[in-house]
C-alpha cells in the first residue's frame, strides 16, 4: 500500500466535516444511551445496562422502588410515594434524561454513549 498523500488527507478531512454537518441538520446527537444509573440514599450508585431487560427493587427511604429496563429504556414501575410523579415520568431512553422519586430518594439517570443532552427541559 502506498503511503498517505496530501490529497488523501483532504478527502478524509472533508468527509469528517460532512459528518458533522449532517449531524446538525438531523439532530441525532449522541449515540444510543448505554446504561441507567440508579442512586438511592446511603448506597453507591449502581448501573444497569439498557441492553438487557431487567426488573430490580431499589431500597429507598420509604420502601422499595421498582425499576424496569426493557428494550433499551428504563422506568419507575412502582414506588412507595404518594404523588407518583416518578411513575408518571414514564420511560427514559435518551442520554441525559433523569427521573426521580424524591420522597423515596431514588434517582434514575440515563447515560452512556456520547451524551446527547446536557439537560432536558420539561
Amino acid at each position: 500500500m502506498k503511503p498517505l498523500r496530501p490529497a488523501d488527507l483532504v478527502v478524509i478531512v472533508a468527509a469528517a466535516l460532512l459528518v458533522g454537518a449532517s449531524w446538525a441538520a438531523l439532530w441525532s446527537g449522541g449515540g444510543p444511551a448505554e446504561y441507567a444509573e440508579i442512586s438511592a440514599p446511603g448506597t453507591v450508585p449502581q448501573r444497569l445496562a439498557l441492553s438487557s431487560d431487567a426488573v430490580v427493587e431499589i431500597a429507598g427511604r420509604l420502601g422499595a422502588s421498582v425499576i424496569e429496563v426493557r428494550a433499551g429504556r428504563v422506568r419507575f414501575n412502582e414506588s412507595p410515594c404518594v404523588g407518583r410523579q416518578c411513575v408518571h415520568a414514564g420511560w427514559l431512553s435518551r442520554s441525559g434524561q433523569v427521573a426521580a422519586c424524591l420522597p423515596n430518594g431514588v434517582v434514575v439517570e440515563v447515560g452512556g454513549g456520547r451524551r446527547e443532552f446536557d439537560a432536558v427541559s420539561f
Partner: protein
Amino acid sequence: MRPTAPRAWLRMAALCLAALGLAGCGPGAQESATQHRFMAMGTLVDVTVYGVPAEDAEAAAREVEQLFHALHRAWQPQGDGALGRFNAALASDPAAAPPDPDLGALIAEANRLAQATGGLFDPTLGALVQLWGFGSAERLPAAPPPPEAVAAWLQQRPLQFDLGGFAKGVAVDRAIALLRARGIEHAIVNAGGDLRAIGRKGDRPWRIGIRAPRDPAGVLAALETAGDEAVFTSGDYERWFEYDGRRYHHILDPRSGYPTTGLVSVTVLHSNAGLADAAATALMVAGPEAWPTVAAALGIEAVMVVDADGGIQLTQAMQPRIWFTDEAYGAQARVRSLP
C-alpha cells in the same frame, strides 16, 4: 500554475490541521464537567460546571445548594419562613406589609408581572393552591375540590401569596449570579427541568432537550444555548392526578379556579430565568389563541407551545433555534408571529 501549487498545498494542509485541531478539542474536554445534584424546592436540582478545577466547581455547587435551601425556607407559602409568616399575617390583616425587604422586592416584581399579563400570571393563588391540594411537593390530591368551594374562592379571592411559577426561576438566577461571583463562566443550573445555562461546554454550546409532552420517553426537540439563556417549560404532565376518568393538573387558571386547558406545554427562552418561569405559566393560562399577545406584553420573543391535538407553534425567534428530533414533529410545527 506549477510554481504556485506547493504553496496551495501548504495552505490546504494548514487548514486541515486547524480543522483537525478544532475537532480534537471535543471528547477530551467533555469529560471535565462537574455535576452536583441535590433535592430542594420540591425538585431535583443539578448544577453542572465546566472549565474550572473539580474541587472549585464542587465547592461553588455546594454553596448553590445552601442558597436553594435558604430560599426554599424563605419562600414557601406556609411555615415559619418569610413568606409563610407574611401569609399568616395577611390572613388576619390583608394590609400587612412583607416582613423583609428581599421578600418585598420579590413580591413587587411578581405583582408587576401579574399586571403585565393582565392577571394571567397570578402570585396570589395561595388559597386556591391549598384548596386543590397542590401545595405539597410530596403528595397529590385524590379528588378535585367541591365546585362550591372553587366558586367561593373566586368570589372572595383571599390574598395569600404562592410564588410557585416564579420563585424557582428567581432562585436559578441567583444561583447563576453566585457561580459567576466564584469565577465560573460555564455552567447550567437545572431545577427540575427548568434551567439557565451560561457559557459553553468547551468547544460547543450547551445542548438542551425539550421533553415531548405526550411521550415521556421522548424528546420533542433540541436547542443549543447561546451564551446566557434560560429554558423554562411548563406542562400539564408535570404534576397531575386522575379522578373519575378526568385528568387534573397543577397549573391553575386564576379566571376559572380550575386547571388550564388548550395547551399541554409551553417552552420559553429568555436570559432572565424568573421572567421565563412566570411567562411559561402565564402562556399556559393564556391558551392557544391568546399566548402571542401575552408573550409580546412580557417582552418574550422565543416561545414554543404544544396544543392538546399535538400541534406545535413556534415564534419566529424560536424557529431557527429548534431542531426537532423527529420529522413527524417538524411536520406538525407552524410559525406564529407575535403582535
